[in-house]
């Protein structure tokens, strides 16, 4: 009996050893290499939804480290698990792509402000644990793809977080000092974390005078994640411009080489090591997760040569692994279309410059003129969303803006890109995390007009989270409210309006792929009959026979019609065509019909701050 006991015991031990070796933990395939593929057929079909992960949904309390939901500038607990759980909400809204916060590890907190937004990179190789681990990210992306939602991640290449200081006084300690009395001597405030720009590079100095370039010293505070950056190549001082904080953004040297305000240290993006490190880091994230695009931060603060290298090498590397149709679009926070569009044009640099750029190429594929696939349409934000729909200015500026697009934006598709010219994939938005929400100063009618505009015009619409819930926050961080405060309600009027627009966009190819033609714009904003009217057609192009006519009345004062001096608006459909307003407005319900006259004109009147989306009855 004892012998049997021991035999049983031995078998139990062996069984346990077997379990020990193999384990019984199911990763549900998340531990397997990700198969890269093109998850988007045509980027023009997408409706992008911008998400600040920390503020969208909290699905995992185990990563609620140091959260303080009572302060807008602190971590609030949103994460990828929460986003995954709320994908049905986004599906119901009609979103087809999400743009999420940077996924990598940030400086956790600095000067009592947290890195909840993700724009303070510290370690480009690890996930931001506030949002989750790699499995959580993969799980979310996989679930999104299964629901037909693409995932775009935010990337930063211009800078790292507040990871070092300039040892100006050569004492090895980060100091903030004030010199001078202000009476007999000028007051001089020296902040070694964030000194003012010096084109020579920040200089050290003692009481005897300057003492050469100030060394930089990386901080080491694991508790707040002020640690030397990763990958390790970024720990070399020469990888940074080290010229101090930009104080004049109009000065090119400062714009490109100054530290971003807040102590964000500027990378020398002309260096091969920096280019290669950025390509390696971000391509790796795609390879680990199968995400579908990059939204690139602060592109105008980065040298153009970097964009040529980065965009091309990313495309080439991903294409080799099966990831094509990868969409990269950037943020140039500027109202000048020539500046913004410059990052989308395919223009070879001068021979000498090109030769220098090719020194960074490690494969046989030399640098071409290709850059990004798209940019945020910031000029439109200022001139249209703000000036017209919020402030009621004349609509002819829209026509001018659109007419000049071909001058400023790339008109040829990038090799291995989206197959679309950048001019066709401008990203149109109403507001975002860096500007006050539309409703901070605008009204709901104006918001809906803006929504109608961006959802029907040429390009990709991008909706900032919370817009559908009529959030009204002002400047950062007030415009970064917690979405869970809305209860994710889907019955609100703006949610349903946005939802309707998204569905109409999906249903009518003209709104996604049609060419665009302005049929009415007005420089009148008073009591004129057409004051505030703007109308445009979408048709042709890759839309086949699909047609749509969008008519907007941006006037807040009175009803308007596209008529001037008795001459009504001429449209591009055949006379007798019956057009149906598939949206409706305060003056006419959805389904109201309008017939094109024998002369090819259309008469329609719109209440103040309202619009109509007219579709041929045969295509409704």
């Amino acid at each position, binding site marked *: 009996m004892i012998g049997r006991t021991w035999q049983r015991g031995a078998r139990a031990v062996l069984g346990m050893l077997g379990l020990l070796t193999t384990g019984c933990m199911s990763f549900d395939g998340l531990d397997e290499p990700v198969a890269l593929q093109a998850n988007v057929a045509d980027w023009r079909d997408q409706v992008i939804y911008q998400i600040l992960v920390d503020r969208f949904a909290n699905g995992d*309390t185990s990563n609620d480290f140091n959260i*303080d939901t009572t302060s807008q500038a602190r971590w609030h607990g949103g994460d990828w698990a929460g986003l995954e759980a709320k994908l049905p909400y986004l599906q119901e809204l009609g979103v087809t792509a999400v743009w999420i916060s940077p996924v990598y590890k940030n400086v956790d907190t600095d000067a009592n402000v947290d890195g909840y937004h993700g724009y303070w990179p510290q370690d480009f190789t690890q996930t931001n644990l506030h949002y989750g*681990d*790699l499995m959580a990210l993969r799980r979310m992306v996989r679930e999104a793809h299964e629901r037909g939602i693409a995932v775009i991640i935010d990337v930063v290449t211009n800078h790292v977080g507040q990871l070092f200081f300039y040892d100006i006084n050569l004492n090895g300690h980060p100091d903030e000092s004030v010199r001078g009395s202000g009476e007999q001597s000028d007051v001089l405030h020296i902040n070694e974390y964030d000194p003012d720009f010096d084109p020579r590079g920040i200089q050290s100095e003692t009481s005897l005078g300057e003492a050469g370039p100030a060394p930089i010293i990386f901080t080491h505070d694991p508790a707040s994640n002020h640690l030397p950056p990763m990958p390790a190549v970024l720990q070399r001082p020469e990888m940074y411009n080290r010229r101090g904080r930009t104080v004049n953004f109009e000065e090119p040297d400062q714009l490109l080489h100054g530290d971003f305000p807040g102590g964000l240290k500027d990378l020398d993006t002309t260096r091969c090591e920096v280019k290669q490190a950025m390509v390696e880091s971000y391509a790796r994230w795609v390879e680990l997760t199968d995400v579908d695009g990059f939204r690139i931060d602060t592109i105008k603060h980065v040298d153009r040569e970097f964009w040529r290298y980065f965009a091309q090498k990313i495309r080439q590397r991903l294409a080799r692994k099966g990831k094509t149709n990868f969409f990269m679009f950037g943020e140039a926070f500027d109202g000048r279309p020539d500046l913004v569009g410059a990052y989308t044009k395919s223009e070879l640099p001068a021979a000498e410059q090109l030769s220098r750029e090719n020194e960074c190429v490690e494969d046989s594929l030399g640098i071409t003129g290709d850059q990004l696939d798209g940019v945020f349409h910031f000029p439109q934000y200022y001139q249209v969303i703000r000036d017209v729909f919020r402030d009621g200015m004349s609509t002819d500026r829209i026509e001018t803006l659109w007419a000049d697009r071909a001058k400023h934006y790339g008109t040829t598709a990038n090799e291995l890109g989206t197959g679309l010219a950048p001019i066709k994939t401008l990203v149109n938005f109403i507001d975002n995390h860096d500007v006050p929400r539309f409703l901070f100063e605008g009204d709901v009618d104006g918001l809906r007009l803006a929504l109608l505009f961006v959802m029907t015009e040429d390009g990709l619409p991008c909706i900032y989270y919370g817009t559908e819930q009529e959030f009204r926050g002002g400047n950062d961080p007030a415009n970064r409210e917690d979405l869970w405060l809305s209860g994710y309600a889907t019955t609100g009027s703006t949610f349903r309006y946005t939802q309707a627009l998204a569905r109409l966009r999906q249903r009518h190819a003209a709104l996604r792929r049609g060419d665009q033609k302005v049929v009415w714009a007005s420089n009148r904003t008073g009591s004129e009959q057409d004051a505030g009217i703007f109308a445009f057609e979408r048709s042709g192009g890759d839309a086949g026979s699909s047609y749509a006519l969008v008519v907007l009345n941006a006037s807040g004062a009175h009803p308007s019609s596209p008529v001037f001096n008795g001459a009504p608006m001429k449209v591009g459909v055949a006379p007798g065509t019956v057009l149906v307003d598939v949206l409706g407005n305060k003056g006419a319900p959805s389904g109201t019909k309008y017939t094109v006259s024998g002369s090819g004109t259309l008469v329609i009147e719109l209440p103040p701050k309202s619009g109509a989306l007219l579709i041929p009855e045969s295509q409704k």
Partner: protein
Amino acid sequence: MADVGEEPRETGLPHPLGEPHAARARAEEPFAARGHRGELRAGIALGKGRQHGLLVAAAEQLDLPGPNELAEQVDEPRAPTFDPVEQGPREVNGGLNRRVGAEHLEHRSVAAVARVLEHRVEVAEGLVKVQGEDQPRACHAAGDRRRIGVGFPDVTMRLSAWLFGLVLACGLGHAASSRADEPDRSEAEGDGKRDDAERTPATAEDDEARPAKAKRRDVVPDASPAEPAERSSPVPAPPATAPATSPVPITAAALPPVAPGPEHRGAFHFGSYGRVAIASDGTGRPARESDIVAYGSRLDTTNYVELELRREDRWEKVGIDTRIISTLAIANSIFHFDGKFDSQIAVRNLYIEASGVGTKGVSVWAGSRMYRGDDIYLLNFWPLDNLNTLGAGVRYEAPTRTVAQVHMGFGQPDSPFYKQRASRPAPLNQFGAATIDLLDRQRWIGSARLEQGFRLGDKAGMKVVGYGEGHRLPAGERESAREGVFEAVPAETGFVVGGQVGAWTGERNTHLNLFVRYASGLAAYGEFTTPGGLGVDRTTSGARELQVALGGNWEGGPLAVMLGGYFRSFRNASPALDAGDVDEGIAIVRPQVWFTDWVGLGVEGSYQVQHRGALVTPEDGGEPRPLVATMPRFGVLPFVSPAGRGSFSRPMIWLIYTIGLRDAGARALYPVDDPYNTRATEHFLGAGAEWWFGSTSYGGGL
């Protein structure tokens, strides 16, 4: 202010300041939020732990009672049952080797009273009887030791002993032949139960979480006397019945017959468990505990001692026996190492137990106590029942070898999960501020245990145990980071169900135990742990833990083999798989050989594995893979055991050398620049000692 669920949580992954594995309480948790506002306690504790010179380990490695502390010796009469005129079998599984409880108690009482009477002068003078001075003899003098029964020639053993003596540098001195044969002291409880109050806290917060060592029960003399015992000094012959270890209440029937006298008799007793060691990792650093699982090899556990003072009384008028047990536990640091007078002290036992209440076999207790079942000595692990409780309980032992016991108790770990203090203006318009408790909830734990023993033949036996616990934490309210803004804190519940099957041969300490335990909800976390990885509803609902464990010992002649192993699967309440979820286990074996009655050699081999619900990028930068950490270890420990042969013979002094091989996954458990992260081979070279005597927690209570 901290939010519920966001408190520093011990991660099973290596804490920056400590060891990767902790007791169950730590192992489950993701990376501790050490930077959480104002929460530095754990970090400090761990830092202190690392400063301990002897065996550096995280604070959670303090051998504090964890979920699997020592057996609840105190409840079970452990004394073997044997006829006063002949040696009975060793108490392998004391609870069930007893004959009718009353007889056993009588024998035990006889022994106790005999000692009291024998040493009444000492007691009167000194109040405290230092039992240890004569306990080995008192407990086992009547017994005799079984000599090597496997045919080894005596000359070979003597030669081996001399050679071993030459090798040992510690100057063993006297010839082995001058030593008395001592009865084997190991407690044959079938479980290797040792009342090891030492703790290896799972978490920095959970200073009490580590399982105590198994209780060592006084060994019952062999049934077949082989040689007369030799003693270095004459001692009073103990009663034929070796006294039961701690838990047996004294009854009048157990006391020797005395002339009608006082209605009250009593005596003080002293007992102790302790271990101390010093070691190096071969590079000049102090050695550290290097196990990667929650319950690993105990060869490198930290220093710890329990000092027990016990008062036992017999109340003749009412026929009730009482005992008052107080046990102080002292853990690192050791003053002689770091020069600091800052050892950590805890009260491990402070309770009264009354036996014979109402009817024979019924005992009641109240107070603070280590309340636990059987352990696996090699792992310092109590797989089934191991509570550190402040409460009360009832126990009934029937003549049919059926034991039923229930208890309930409360606890409040020092954590914002349980308690939140806030500052408010003083009342009545007075100066200053007052501190109030906004959230103040204590955890209720109730347990029930039913044990049935079976005799198999003359000596052998087995038992079957069913066990369960209930846990509850009431709802509450806490203040958010903004003063005046409150948020609800939900209630928590949990339960444990489990069982044990044990068998013993009745020969020395040969036994085998199989444990299975399942815990759910709040109970899946350690009793002193701050739950982490909460669910979306911010509760522990959904957390679960399954443990299957095996422990045993075989002894024959000069040989002994201890073995153990377990598999544990923990999932926190967070629905998705994450780093806080773990599957782990270990298989360990320690064969030992006694070259003589008091010197021997042991070797130990173990293999431990841990899976985490996390992906790590391998060193070669390839595809991320699930974290799997393994570490085989091998150790050699020559020892001196003055108490004689037996796996559980104590005291024991030993040299230890171990080598551990840490794979990439095991190294990844440690922070960058930690030596455990950079080197794959770990050496441990040291010396140590362990003892127990006269302790209710560690066998030999009387």
